[in-house]
């Protein structure tokens, strides 16, 4: 069913490919695009752990993205932490936040869950906006992010920053892959498919959902940290409802049933954004229309459609096996 070695190999290959980009002298625009893609990609991939694998549609996931960003930014600006220290602190803070919010939300049914996560996100957003003295309000964290060297790595250097982010990104993807291919990952699928039956197998559905919620929040936080390092600041819109909406759209666009689907969706969406911006300032209008066409027309992400076709072929083979066995059994009975 899964091959850990193959996955690790692919991850390594991906990392190598990413690292080759600056080596081959790609223009900064490409590197910037990739950096944005990595940060938002982690947001979308982590959200899909909830939506695609567990069936928990959270519409407020961006709050963890923003929490990681702001916690990291504030920690570095305080001057009391090294980069690795602030990294860990930011993730820890987000995990705690997810634990509390998750404990309240995870038990609720689909609709209430979607909306309550949205509400909590907006609360967080309002706190960021309102606590001007601490967070800079609508201006965001100003004054840049200090980057003291650690372990000989200097993140003020763009290339080293790129390498650092690439490694962090691939590591997170590998972690998500590990989760998804583990027994825990299949428990998530069971909950998504038939929560009642899962409970009937003795699974503690609430605890599993909560664990998943916290884990996905942590990965989203890493995405936020990467973005903060990249843009040298943290801004309230990291945690605005449109960011959550875009993450969901990235998942739809790429496909929620394929592991890397959300990442593909991130790339497609960012391309779409960048292209639209060159022609018109009405990106929202275009995005809205595209969403409608996709939701009402295709009803599934393109990767999902491809995955479906591939799965249908596998099923056809398995069905051939069954039909052969049944025929044998039938002739056995007739004899």
């Amino acid at each position, binding site marked *: 069913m899964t091959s850990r070695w193959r996955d690790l190999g692919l991850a390594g290959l991906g990392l190598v490919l990413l690292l080759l980009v600056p080596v081959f002298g790609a223009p900064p625009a490409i590197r910037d695009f990739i950096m944005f893609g990595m940060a938002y990609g982690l947001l979308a991939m982590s959200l899909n752990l909830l939506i695609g694998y567990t069936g928990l549609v959270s519409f407020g996931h961006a709050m963890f993205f923003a929490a990681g960003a702001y916690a990291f930014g504030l920690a570095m600006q305080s001057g009391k932490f090294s980069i690795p220290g602030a990294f860990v602190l930011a993730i820890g803070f987000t995990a705690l936040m997810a634990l509390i919010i998750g404990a309240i939300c995870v038990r609720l049914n689909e609709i209430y869950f979607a909306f309550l996560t949205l509400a909590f996100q907006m*609360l967080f957003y309002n706190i960021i906006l309102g606590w001007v003295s601490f967070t800079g309000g609508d201006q965001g964290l100003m004054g840049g992010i200090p980057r003291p060297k650690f372990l000989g790595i200097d993140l003020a250097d763009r290339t080293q920053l790129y390498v650092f982010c690439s490694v962090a990104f691939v590591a997170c993807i590998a972690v998500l892959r590990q989760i998804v291919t583990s027994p825990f990952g299949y428990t998530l699928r069971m909950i998504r498919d038939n929560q009642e039956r899962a409970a009937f197998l003795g699974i503690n559905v609430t605890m599993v959902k909560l664990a998943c919620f916290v884990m996905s929040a942590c990965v989203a936080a890493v995405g936020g940290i990467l973005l903060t390092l990249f843009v040298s600041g943290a801004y309230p819109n990291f945690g605005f409802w449109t960011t959550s909406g875009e993450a969901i759209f990235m998942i739809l666009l790429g496909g929620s049933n394929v592991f890397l689907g959300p990442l593909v969706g991130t790339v497609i969406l960012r391309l779409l954004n960048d292209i639209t911006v060159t022609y018109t300032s009405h990106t929202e209008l275009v995005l809205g229309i595209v969403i409608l066409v996709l939701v009402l027309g295709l009803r599934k992400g393109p990767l999902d459609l491809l995955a479906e076709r591939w799965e249908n072929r596998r099923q056809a083979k398995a069905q051939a096996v069954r039909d052969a066995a049944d025929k044998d059994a039938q002739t056995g009975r007739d004899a």
Partner: protein
Amino acid sequence: MDLDALLRCVGMTSCVVTQLTSGMIIGMLLFLIASGVTLIFGVLNVINFAHGSLYMIGAYAAWTFYQLTGSYFVSALGAAVAVGVLGVLFERVLMSKVYGSNVLMQLLVCYAVVLISDDLIKIIWGPVPLSMGMPPEFRLPPVRFMGGVIPPFYIFMILAAMAIGLLLWLVIGRTRFGSIVRAAAINGPMVSALGIRVNLYYAAVFGIGSALAGAAGALAAPVRSLTPGMGFSILIESFIVTVIGGMGSIVGAFAASIIIGLTRSFGSIGFPLFVDGVMFLIMALVLIFKPSGLFGRAHR
């Protein structure tokens, strides 16, 4: 946190009157929007995340009609009707396609509509905040009550909203139309099997819910500034109201809107930074102890 200011205010009747009224108008606006949300959810089992946009369109429509006709009442009525029609269109063309689908699809359709309407408003009316100003019909001296000062328009708003609420409650509870709607909420296919064109009723319900939002927008226009983002913040609050009051309950929406409205107005004196926090706290408590809301039907 400035609890002293709050205590001082509570001690003065003038302040109490002012805050009560302002709390009531916030509450009544929320009530109109929340009752639309709760009606649509109760009957169609769909959360209309685009409801805030309908409110916004109502406000802008009222502003435009007012520029054209100079009469506030005509503008307000026109806006409510226009948004109602828009709501029916939205339902027939878009929402009805995702009734059976999971929340994700419904969310995305509404999200798309919000994006599109936000941008269209920016294109047609411009991103600069507009203001309608107080219509001449209401440029009357403020009413003095127990030492407090109440602008006459506020009284109109409160009475209008209550009247609309009462009308809604009567229509749903006491008319044939209302009983069909209530039956469709419980078992749509069954109503259809009785030979009634359920889809028409679904569209009508969506239209009524939208018209309520449009009316709220029209009522808000003289006293709020019109910006393309005005829909969203009130949407979240209306959801909080709906959850606290109970999904599907108009009475619940009424009670909860008053609670939230008063929390906002008194809270802005006593704990301005935490008003949102208190609202969420109330909602969280309700969800923990009575998940179906104060007046809601308990689902399994």
